[in-house]
């Protein structure tokens, strides 16, 4: 039975890798296949495919989905009202004669954008103005794209949506997730800064006579007022400093952005227009989270746990340092929609590790968080990586090669932290 389940998983990975099926659909079919291979009936009873996988599994990550929608709403508002673009413009104006200062400034903005919303939407918030501005001051295109992505990775430990996802996926209290993620933040921050400083020193500043083909004209917006520029900080400060839950923290950000940038008569229209646009932005991750919820439910079914636990247990390292070594070596398996992608089959494997009692839940949280950093930046199939690379005018694979040494180190640092905190 276990071998059959593994075959279903391998087929799913193949379908994702070859792009025959979109990831969300592949995960959904994998969930149903795993449940059937685990001997669960199609209908009838709480452990049936219809009930456990589809009915209970689909909304399992509902809290994460709401956070995604609100994060996307705030991100859309920051784009529509010019808040993100204004911050980047100010940074370029202040630091323009020092390319490293500009890159560090855009990196800081990317951290803020990454902490509010994820995926390509976050990359666009910081990158639409930030990437051409960095290239204009002589930063090589690949480093310009990589800087935005490294900023998103450094913002990932502070991302409220990410806390909710990890909390839902490994069934840990939000406080515990937050506490671990805050310890990961300095590692991501230091390696992000190291990327900028080292890569700029290694590649140098380049001035080019280059011309871009005419593209779709961007909507040009006025500068947001200075007091609106603190918007991206507000949800983080509320959630971190005042322990306000995630949904009200994000809503407070939305409310503040509206008040700071919109005339009172226009609140309703602006809010509604940006909310409807946010649904478009949030649709792909929400569909993915529906499928991940189904997959998590499938691998937690009694039949699946019984079949998979002995196998996963046999190959999972037990000693704390072996844990770091083995999972550090396996880092590339989270790229290209691979089996350790935490927004794919990796979430299912994490489910098996927790439900089979192979590692304590906090250790699995650490594992997912570590791989999440690599995935966010270096995976050439991640939407944010594809967008940033293409917008900078380079291939996503070049961004992967440029950033992977740093994100790999980030993952090793987080794995070592996990091992020290939860396994030693």
């Amino acid at each position: 039975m276990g071998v059959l389940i593994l075959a279903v998983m391998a087929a799913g990975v193949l379908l994702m890798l070859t792009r025959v099926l979109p990831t969300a659909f592949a995960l959904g079919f994998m969930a149903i296949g795993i449940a059937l291979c685990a001997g669960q009936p199609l209908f009838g009873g709480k452990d049936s495919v219809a009930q456990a996988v589809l009915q209970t599994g689909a909304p399992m990550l509902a809290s994460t989905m709401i956070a995604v929608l609100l994060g996307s709403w705030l991100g859309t508002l920051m784009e529509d009202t010019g808040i993100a673009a204004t911050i980047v413009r100010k940074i370029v104006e202040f630091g323009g004669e020092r390319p490293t200062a500009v890159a560090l400034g855009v990196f800081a903005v990317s951290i803020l954008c990454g902490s509010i919303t994820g995926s390509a939407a976050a990359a666009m918030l910081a990158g639409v103005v930030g990437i051409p501005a960095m290239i204009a001051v002589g930063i090589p295109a690949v480093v310009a794209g990589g800087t935005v992505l490294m900023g998103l990775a450094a913002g990932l430990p502070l991302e409220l949506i990410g806390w909710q996802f990890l909390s839902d996926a490994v069934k840990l209290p939000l406080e515990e997730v937050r506490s671990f993620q805050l310890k990961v933040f300095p590692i991501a921050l230091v390696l992000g800064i190291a990327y900028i400083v080292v890569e700029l020193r290694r590649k140098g500043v380049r001035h080019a006579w280059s011309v871009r083909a005419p593209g779709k004209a961007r909507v040009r917006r006025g500068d947001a007022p200075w007091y609106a520029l603190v918007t991206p900080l507000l949800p983080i400060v509320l959630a971190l400093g005042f322990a306000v839950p995630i949904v009200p923290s994000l809503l407070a950000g939305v409310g503040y952005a509206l008040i700071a940038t919109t005339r009172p008569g226009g609140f309703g229209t602006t809010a509604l227009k940006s909310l409807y646009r946010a649904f478009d932005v949030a649709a792909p991750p929400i569909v993915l989270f529906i499928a991940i919820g189904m997959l998590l439910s499938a691998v937690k079914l009694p039949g699946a746990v019984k079949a998979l636990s002995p196998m996963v247990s046999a190959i999972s390292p037990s000693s704390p340092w072996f844990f770091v070594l083995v999972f550090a070596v396996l880092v590339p398996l989270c790229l290209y929609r691979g089996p350790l992608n935490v927004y794919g089959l990796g979430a299912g494997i994490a489910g098996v590790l927790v439900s089979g009692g192979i590692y304590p839940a906090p250790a699995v949280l650490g594992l997912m968080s570590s791989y999440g950093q690599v995935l966010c930046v270096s995976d050439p199939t991640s939407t944010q990586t594809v967008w940033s690379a293409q917008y900078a005018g380079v291939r996503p694979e070049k961004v992967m090669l440029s950033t992977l040494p740093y994100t790999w180190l980030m993952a090793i640092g987080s794995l070592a932290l996990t091992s020290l905190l939860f396994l030693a």
Partner: protein
Amino acid sequence: MTTTDEDLAVDLLRAAPTHENRAEERLRAWARIALAFGDELAATPDPLPAPEIAEVLGGARDDVLVLAEYDTRVRTILVRPDGISRAVKVLMRAGVSVTAGELRAAAVAHEVAHHRMHRGEGRELARRLGHTAFRLGPWRIRGHVTGADELAAHRFAHRRTGIGHGPLALTAALTRHTFGG
């Protein structure tokens, strides 16, 4: 109405996302300063040894053309023959006649200007632009004007090579056409 170099320079500045809300007069003033600086730079002999010139592959994509680059780390001008030959074809489609040799010479001269500005002369351009990013009483932080060095380098290349269509006009013509094929 004839489009002057100054008009093209204003358009180029306005295309930078950092200037999208700047007033026309401000952009025009910066354009004038940058072009005049390019003229002056071209009129003075190069004080530094000429940078190395190397040819590297690439530079021609459907979304971006790179004609030449100046690598500050190795102080070398990297000429992109693929980008130049694609640009010649695109310009021909646009009804602008320029040879690969002329374009190459202009691209090299453009990067010589960057070489000079990067090695210190760019500070004078920043001083003349006089953009204040922040002021608190007597304290003032000088702001960076994105694209001003490009304008100066384009004008420098035009003056030094004397090609019929200057780099500003060529850039403007290229940005109006797709690069495919």
